[in-house]
């Protein structure tokens, strides 16, 4: 931390603060310094850029750029802030993409949402937003949504015409005598989900891929600013339904930090318990989808069979199978009642009964190995270069796991270790999924035992301890909170105003964004058969891709 602090002596800064155990918060004076700062940080080992997040301050007439630089092992992190003017012509900053490749899409997102232009960016096209928002700035506070929406049907027609034009262009671009063509892989495709990959291929060989995303763009980051702090969890949990508990945990931690509230020990353990159950159910779907993409549905069915029992627990706890809304600022929403943990015990027993079968048939499947061990290989260096995280990073042998690096909730008391694989191939990522399910079940066992023991000896009161009061109005402030989500790091950057009743700005950095970014790199030169395999192995959820 000292070395990083020393770096900033060469630059004019407004303040340098230590923030949380692992963060250094720096505000630069000049926007022109950002490239030099990025270079200096990179040469000091902070090789990962988590995200680029602009915040729009209308009254101060400035846009504050936030850069989150991380060490690959995420023990030393640096949060760099810098102001740039708000007028659309002067809203320009140097791009750091030439230094951090991982910022490629994040800067494109900032460009399409806030109109921040990045000089020297290699590919500054709008992303996520639909065609009717091109050239506009939808996330700025003064953007007039109502006026824009007055002509919805017209906007849809514009989107359609743009698509038509693109298709016509594809026909003229290609030599009609060659075997080259451009395939639209999605969104009406059995394996794609709501995403479109523009696959430029020569027969079966892929020449290039350009993902077209934004088919489930719900503008969540804008949506939360219209809701109060509790209501916002509805939007936050819909980041991705597969693992919704952990995204709520991330958001609630940020709120609690600004409100300066310490939640009870019981609530912390409940967050661990619920979060791991949610992670298990997500990973099971992930394994199933991986095999679905290889044309084998049995794995999906068997995993869904086990997953239902874990959803039973969520249902007995919160009343809903998926949209639980179980985590709230101040703790967890519901009390823990008798019988709930027995449902969980049943789920664990069900998992124990089937896990050896699943391991023998699906994790060690020779046909799968013959296909997947040589495909989609990501080296540890590539992980760093493209700022990947979660399962994908750990499958390449990178020891990064926020539950251990920057423990939140009660993870500092949990016995666990990094689960890694060395190969970095698609098969390794599948193995990771299964290993992590096992790890999560072990954590669930621990948490359950801990909760039961402490209820028995009277430390926890399951009907009272679950919530502490969080004031309705929050002071001015900002906070970041990171959680290890099923797919990787989720970074929530929450900004509040004076006496705020609703978030001023919430940036959600979700892992699928980076994972989709590298699809083009991974698939170049492979064949059409490898698209679903690699796409499935990267464990992408379109929900958190588009937000």
């Amino acid at each position, binding site marked *: 931390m000292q070395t990083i602090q020393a770096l900033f002596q060469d630059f004019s800064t407004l303040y340098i603060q230590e923030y949380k155990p692992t963060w250094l918060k720096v505000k630069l004076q000049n926007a022109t310094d950002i490239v030099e700062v990025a270079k200096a940080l990179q040469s000091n080992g902070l090789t990962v850029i988590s995200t680029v997040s602009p915040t729009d301050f209308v009254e101060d007439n400035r846009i504050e750029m936030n850069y989150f630089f991380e060490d690959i092992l995420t023990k030393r992190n640096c949060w760099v802030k810098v102001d740039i003017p708000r007028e659309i012509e002067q809203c320009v900053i140097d791009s750091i993409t030439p230094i951090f490749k991982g910022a490629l899409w994040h800067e494109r997102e900032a460009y399409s949402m806030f109109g921040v232009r990045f000089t020297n960016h290699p590919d500054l096209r709008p992303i996520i937003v639909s065609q009717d928002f091109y050239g506009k700035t939808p996330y700025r506070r003064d953007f007039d949504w109502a006026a824009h929406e007055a002509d919805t049907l017209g906007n849809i027609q514009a989107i359609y015409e743009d698509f038509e034009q693109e298709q016509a262009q594809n026909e003229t671009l290609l030599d009609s005598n060659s075997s080259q063509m451009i395939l639209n892989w999605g969104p009406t495709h059995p394996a794609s989900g709501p995403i479109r990959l523009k696959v430029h291929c020569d027969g079966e060989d892929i020449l290039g891929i350009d993902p077209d995303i934004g088919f489930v763009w719900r503008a969540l980051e804008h949506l939360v600013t219209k809701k109060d702090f509790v209501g916002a969890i509805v939007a936050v949990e819909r980041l991705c339904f597969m693992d919704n508990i952990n995204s709520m945990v991330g958001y609630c931690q940020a709120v609690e930090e600004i409100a300066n509230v310490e939640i009870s020990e019981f609530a912390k353990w409940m967050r661990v318990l619920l979060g791991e159950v949610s992670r298990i159910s997500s990973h099971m779907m992930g394994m199933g989808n991986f095999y679905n993409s290889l*044309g084998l549905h*049995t794995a999906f069915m*068997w995993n869904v069979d086990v997953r239902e029992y874990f959803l039973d627990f969520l249902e007995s706890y919160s009343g809903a199978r998926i949209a639980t809304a179980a985590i709230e600022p101040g703790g967890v929403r519901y009390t823990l009642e008798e019988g709930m943990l027995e449902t969980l015990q049943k789920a664990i027993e069900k998992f124990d009964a089937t896990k050896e079968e699943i391991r023998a048939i699906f994790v060690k499947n020779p046909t799968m190995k*013959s*296909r997947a061990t040589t495909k989609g290989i990501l080296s540890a260096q590539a992980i760093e270069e493209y700022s990947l995280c979660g399962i994908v990073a750990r499958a390449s042998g990178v020891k990064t796991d926020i539950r251990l690096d920057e423990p939140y909730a009660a993870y500092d008391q949990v016995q666990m270790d990094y689960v890694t694989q060395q190969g970095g191939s698609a098969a390794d990522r599948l193995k990771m999924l299964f290993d992590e399910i096992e790890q999560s079940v072990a954590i669930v066992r621990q948490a359950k035992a801990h909760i039961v023991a402490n209820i028995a000896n009277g430390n926890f009161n399951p009907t009272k301890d679950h919530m502490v009061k969080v004031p309705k109005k929050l002071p001015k402030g900002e906070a970041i909170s990171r959680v290890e989500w099923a797919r990787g790091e989720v970074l929530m950057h929450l900004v509040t105003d004076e006496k705020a009743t609703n978030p001023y700005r919430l940036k959600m950095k979700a892992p699928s964004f980076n994972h989709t970014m590298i699809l083009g790199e991974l698939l170049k030169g492979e064949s*059409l058969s490898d698209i*679903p395999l690699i796409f499935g192995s990267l464990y992408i959820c379109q929900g958190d891709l588009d937000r």
Partner: protein
Amino acid sequence: MELLFNITIFPGMLYFLAWTVLLFWFFRKFMAALHKRVGPHFNGPAGSYQTLFDFTKLLTKESVTPSGVNPYLFSLMPILAALIAMLPSAFIPWTPSTTVVPTEYGVLALVVLIGIEPFLLFLSGFGSDNKYSFLGGIRILTQMISSETAFFLAALSPALLFGTLNLQTITESASWLSFVVLIPAFVLYFIALLALLEQPPFNIPDAEQEIVYGFYTEYSGTNYFLLKFAEFAEFMAVYAGATVLFLGGYKGLLVDGYLCFFLKMLLMAMVMMAIRAATPRVTMKQMIRLFWQYLVPLSLLNIAWIMLAKIYLLGGMA
């Protein structure tokens, strides 16, 4: 009169229709059991009317002909595919007395008629004016070229062993010893069969996750029914071929007859389904490598083994 009976009822149209309906139901039910599900359940006893409803629906639904395709090619191909797929049954000795066209060249007829089918499916994909259909068509052609060498060599080894191309004679001269001798050929035949019928792990031409539904993509209603019917008729032809060539046809342990023939075919269908439930799809390149690098040399070796066995084990049996 008898010919009319053969064409319309057994082993003709009605027989194939019943086979398609029943086998599709059986596949779904068997697959569901491997998936830990129930499968069709509420329509009829154990859901057995389900596939009847499915096919009736397909026949009464609209058949879309996309604009931009040649309508004749587009609608002719499913009919041709269905007809050609049914033809091999004329040469099969279903029971000791039922062979519609008794000929000395039964094996050749069988092999050629089975081998024509993928080409028709290629044309149906080619005629769909859809990129995914076209890719499916190209894939089916590649797969056909790769798998048929091994398939033919394996299918001809019983003919070599017994010294005849007549299917009836092959069935009659089959014994336990010849069955043992033909086991390697049967295994080769079965692997090639999976590729020929586009079944997992070789369901490359209609790989849903890669190219939507391959050559089926643009077909709907009656046309789709005909293609599906052709697929199931093709199952029957290939299973029946294997039964006659390797498993002794209608000969049973206790009694001879059609029932034994049917049970043997069903057994193969079950093995195929079990493979389907446990094996992911391989890629085009892997399939080509498997066939040309391993199966074709092995089937040549198998021919040598058959000859040696014929001379030394069976004592030059005629």
